[in-house]
């Protein structure tokens, strides 16, 4: 069965304290891995798509990387406004479906 697991479930960081969020997956035929940010009570906001192992994408303080088994979302010198839940999703096989992890809730303390 295809699975996407995110860790940790929750993470508290001091402002400026860099860290990484993990998304591990067990799927056949990965076609894409997607990162989203979700603020409370809102819909997920697209951040990155990664298609193949070794690929990296960056946006401001965020950097996403992909290996054959997992992806990391690195957050460098986070600010309180980076506080949100970060969701990972994979697309695999021949269909259009995404498989989502349950997310990592990030809190950045001033």
């Amino acid at each position, binding site marked *: 069965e295809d699975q996407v697991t995110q860790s940790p479930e929750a993470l508290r960081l001091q402002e400026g304290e860099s860290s990484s969020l993990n998304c591990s997956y067990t799927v056949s035929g990965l076609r894409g891995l*997607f990162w989203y940010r979700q603020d409370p009570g809102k819909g997920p906001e697209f951040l990155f798509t990664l298609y193949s192992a070794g690929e990296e994408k960056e946006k401001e303080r965020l950097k996403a990387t992909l290996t054959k088994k997992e992806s990391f979302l690195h957050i460098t010198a986070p600010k309180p406004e980076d506080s949100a839940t970060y969701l990972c999703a994979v697309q695999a096989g021949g269909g259009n*479906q995404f498989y989502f992890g349950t997310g990592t809730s990030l809190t950045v303390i001033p």
Partner: protein
Amino acid sequence: DVKVTQSSRYLVKRTGEKVFLECVQDMDHENMFWYRQDPGLGLRLIYFSYDVKMKEKGDIPEGYSVSREKKERFSLILESASTNQTSMYLCASSLGTFTQYFGPGTRLTVL
């Protein structure tokens, strides 16, 4: 920018009522999706559609139906709402097999 809108941000209904949730996208995307999101369970796919009048069941279709009469509009219908359908409902759209873009969500409470 892709824009996906949902008809209501908050909705309160009574058990047994018929509920319509509507989603509209403005980017001519062929694929549209309905998810529900519950704490600890993540996003679960209810139904999706890859073309007008076409629909496919997702992981949890029981108690729901959908309608897609126009390309830009995808409706989720709860035929007889129940308390276990209290949830956050999210609509998304995509072009081909690419990134899904989400609407703001509808928080549905069934009393």
